[in-house]
């Protein structure tokens, strides 16, 4: 799906089928399939508890699946665990760094553990600190870094051994907007270098912005997969937003359109419904919502956002059935 991936190679960096995992009798993953082309960015999108971290831990060889197979960088995560580890890196939700070591010492240590000789590890650390805008802070203890700096150091650490596949588990959770932006830029930079990035997120804008390919995970099941554009198309190409003059009108419009509603904003008194954007359908929808012509003050037709997709796909079953 990613042009970059197709151009570079037809091989898949990640290939999984039927992955399942239970913890203490609770099914966390119920058999998921994934195909990520080499050199692309794939986002695993889902709410808390969807099974994102479990998926990453299995692919990164830190957990074993109860069922199913997975190959990462061409190696089986079960049988060739060591080979897989040699080709990947994982950045988890907690910054995996020593607060009492400086940024430079942390990177040097990781470099040495990744098999670099002493001098090469030192060079690589300097290179990465420069690349991630941490050269100024290289000699300071990581414990004194801001959240965004620590996340960037963590990313730099992931890159030390020049992995082919990088796993990022919720890379921007808990960051302020400014740090999120710099982290995004850093991740986009990884992808530009030809590394395959597999990230999990609960933010739609993050997936939309970074990923070539998005897989939506909910309750341990993949409920959709494709590019951001494809996913948006799956739900509806357009959304018709109807803004009501009063809260009463808002409630009335909402109840008239129940089955088609994909977006609700009580504060702005806006009800959003899926539409193909044609004049005939918009007219029909307006008639259905507001037969007396006094409930809708204004309307707007806009492209569906990933939020619409997300809420549609991850809504509890009965609601999803309406759409």
């Amino acid at each position, binding site marked *: 799906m990613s042009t970059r991936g197709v151009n570079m190679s037809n091989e898949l960096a990640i290939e999984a089928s039927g992955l399942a995992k239970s913890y203490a009798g609770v099914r966390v993953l119920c058999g998921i399939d994934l195909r990520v082309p080499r050199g692309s960015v794939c986002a695993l999108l889902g709410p808390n508890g969807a099974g994102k971290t479990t998926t990453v831990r299995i692919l990164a060889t830190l957990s074993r699946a109860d069922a199913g197979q997975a190959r990462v960088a061409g190696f089986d995560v079960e049988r060739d665990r*060591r080979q897989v580890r040699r080709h990947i890196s994982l950045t*988890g939700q907690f910054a995996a760094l020593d607060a009492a070591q400086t940024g430079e010492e942390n990177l040097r*240590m990781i470099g040495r553990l*990744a098999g670099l000789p002493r001098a090469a590890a030192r060079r690589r650390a300097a290179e990465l600190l420069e690349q991630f805008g941490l050269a100024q802070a290289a000699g300071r203890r990581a414990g004194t870094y801001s959240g965004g700096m620590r996340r960037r150091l963590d990313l730099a650490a992931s890159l030390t051994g020049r992995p082919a596949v990088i796993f990022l588990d919720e890379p921007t959770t808990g960051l302020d907007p400014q740090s999120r932006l710099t982290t995004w830029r850093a991740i986009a930079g990884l992808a530009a270098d030809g590394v395959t990035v597999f990230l999990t997120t609960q933010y739609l804008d993050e997936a939309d912005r970074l990923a070539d390919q998005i897989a939506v995970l909910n309750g341990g099941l993949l409920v959709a997969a494709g590019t951001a554009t494809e996913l948006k198309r799956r739900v509806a190409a357009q959304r018709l937003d109807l803004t009501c003059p009063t809260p009463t009108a808002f409630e009335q419009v909402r109840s008239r359109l129940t089955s088609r509603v994909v977006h609700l904003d009580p504060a702005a008194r806006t009800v959003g419904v899926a539409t193909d954007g044609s004049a005939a359908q918009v007219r029909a929808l307006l008639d259905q919502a507001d037969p007396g012509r006094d409930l809708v003050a204004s309307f707007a037709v806009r492209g569906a956002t990933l939020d619409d997709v997300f809420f549609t796909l991850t809504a509890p079953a009965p609601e999803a059935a309406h759409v």
Partner: protein
Amino acid sequence: MSDALIMAGRSLRLSLRSPDALLTALLLPVMLMVVFVYLFGGAVAIGTSYVEYVVPGVLLLCAITGASTTAVTVCQDMTGGIIDRFRSLDVPGTVVLAGHVTASLLRNLVSTVLVAAVAVGIGFRPHSDPARLAAAVGVLLLFVAAVSWLAAAFGLAVSAPEAANGAMFFLMFLSYASSAFVPVRTMPWWLRGFARHQLATPVTETLRGLLLGQPAGGLPAGAQLAAALAWSAGILAASVLLSMVLIRRRTA
């Protein structure tokens, strides 16, 4: 092997940068020695000078307080996420633990020297020779290795670094209920059996034998040494095995 060295270097650097842990490991034994010698010492009548009697016991206590901080550092690694990074770099969990134990050995070597220097300063006069001195250091280091691994296993078993701190208090109790500070014969009868045979007593008595010429009481020197080595080696082996099982379970 090189991974082990890197991990040991890391643990050592972390110990040097954790001033409170370092201070605990160094100052606590010195303070306890001063308390025992000057406050309790006057009330303890054992026939010889109390400072001579108590210094081997303080060295043991020093080893315990120094080694048991391993529980905290191990627990921090497990809860902080860095263990996943090490594992994804294919560093075995046991090597990470071994790094902490190595740092603990070096830390304790330093604190032992410091405590011994203070002991000499307040009147402790060893009757020993270089070979026996070296043997005493060896016995102490084996004991430190055993206690450090035990503490590492404890750090793997608990879920928070605060709880890992408790390892120290449990282990310190072993030194109180032994011949480290008072002769076992002064204890209530029901405690004597335990006090005489649990590891702290043979280790203390072996140190006494090596530093002062003869153990203060009980078994002959050879038997104390055998018991001390057997206890330390046994605890070391059991703790290494236990921590291997625990780290596997913890990271599955």
